[in-house]
């Protein structure tokens, strides 16, 4: 479904990602772990072509993405939920979800918006409230729902737990996993929280200073705990 091979990413002159390679199956769910500044966000943005300058091969649905713009990638079935949320402040929750469906890939049957809102109890009373009048946590929830609304083949989810209360994090983990299963959405998740990542995914990549240093199942992760922790500790 998604294959990266020899991907390098740059901001101006700084070389951030080095020779990244991995692949994801249809419906696969993968976590990316790494400390602050390791390059998780840069990797997601590179897949979306939404920021860094990228070299190397990215293939999606057996098609080389080459220079495809972010909006083309979105219509092919990639959805990116950025860490700074970027909820549309002038649109209500409902409209934020609707506009994501409007922009997204036409080939898959749409998720009914009210069903989706119903899955996130926090959003129910906010259905008709503009994004600009929501708290940070509420916006975070809406941003995740907006990613799901597009019903992408793969959702690129960047630090969804940031700023959420612990009980809400648990709820979100449950909903993200359930939505991915029910709607056939693959997940590439960048997270600091190992607990959350474990709830939502089946495989894990660890990156350190722009290089993949570990790749395997959660069981492998536990078996190599000592080696992996070195790359995650500060």
């Amino acid at each position, binding site marked *: 479904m998604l294959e990266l091979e020899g991907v390098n990413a740059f901001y101006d002159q700084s070389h951030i990602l080095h020779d990244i390679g991995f692949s994801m199956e249809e419906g696969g769910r993968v976590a990316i772990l790494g400390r602050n500044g390791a390059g998780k966000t840069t990797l997601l943005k590179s897949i979306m072509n939404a920021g860094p300058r990228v070299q190397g091969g990215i293939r999606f649905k057996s098609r080389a993405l080459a220079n495809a713009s*972010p*909006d083309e990638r979105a*219509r092919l079935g990639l959805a990116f939920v950025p860490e700074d949320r970027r909820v549309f402040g*002038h649109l209500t929750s409902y409209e934020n979800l609707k506009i994501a469906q409007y922009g*997204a890939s036409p080939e898959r049957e749409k998720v009914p918006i009210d069903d989706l809102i119903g899955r996130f109890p926090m959003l129910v009373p906010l259905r008709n409230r503009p994004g600009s009048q929501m708290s940070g946590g509420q916006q975070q929830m809406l941003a995740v729902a907006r990613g799901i609304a597009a019903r992408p083949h793969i959702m690129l989810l960047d630090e969804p737990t940031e700023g959420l209360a612990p009980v809400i994090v648990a709820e979100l983990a449950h909903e993200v996993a359930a939505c991915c299963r029910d709607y056939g959405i693959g997940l590439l998740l960048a997270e600091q929280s190992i607990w959350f990542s474990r709830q939502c995914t089946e495989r894990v990549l660890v990156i350190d200073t722009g290089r993949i240093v570990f790749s395997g199942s959660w069981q492998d992760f536990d078996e190599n705990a000592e080696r992996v922790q070195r790359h995650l500790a500060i």
Partner: protein
Amino acid sequence: MTAQIAFAAANGIVLGMAVFLVAAGLTLVFGILKVFNFAHGSFFMIGAYIAHAITGQDPSSLPYFLFAAFVAALAVGAMGIATDTLVLRRLSSVANDYTLIATFAILLLCDGATKMVFGQDIYAVYPPAVLDQTMDVGILLTYYSVFIVACGIIVFVLLELGLNRLWFGKLVQTVARDPWMAGVIGLRVQRLKLVSVGVSFALAGLAGGLLVANQSLSLSLGHSYLLLAFNSVIVGGLGSIRGAFVAALIFGLFESFNSLLLPSMPGTVSYMVLIAVILLKPEGLFPERT
């Protein structure tokens, strides 16, 4: 004295609406592209020339006058699409001074082209016969000035409804406010911008066609409303239609009372208003919320 004040107020409202017609497209382009288009007045002038070329010098019927304004709007809208494709869209990632120079160059180009196509003669254009009458409502008002006020209000209401109620308007606002995220969710940002820039330029052409009557049509027509339109866009809050509407009315009224009360110092009050707003509320009366 009361009659004079009433007359000045009426004139101020008419001027305000005329200024709004010019300012509407200018503020819209800014809202979408974040480019302050110095050539806007020239496109307004081109609209006036095109409408005049269709109707001719003599008073026409009202439908024909409107038809000419509509054709001017279409033609100038098409020029807007060309201008965006060739110039404006390339300015999104460069420093503001390049934008200024580029749009100033477009202004010179438009003025030169207009001179070549339409010549340097000055024309007097009359409003359609039905509008070229006066009514007495305590003061004498021409039908044409009432027509301008009606046009201003109609354009304002249509833009407000279109941007805030129609789905297309919401798409345009989304692209204007956060083009990066709009692209990330799959909106065709470039195309939506192009269409909205076309509409904004069409508004300039429409304004030219509607306002061409009752003034001398010459190459300097662009400058007459332009300064007030610029002021209105700044004072109203860059990119805000509502702000441009309110500010255009304020400037129209201040200009009008300025010439009644301080006839020897034309325009001073407007600039004092501009300076006061920039000092006290530099983001304008209706700043864009994000």
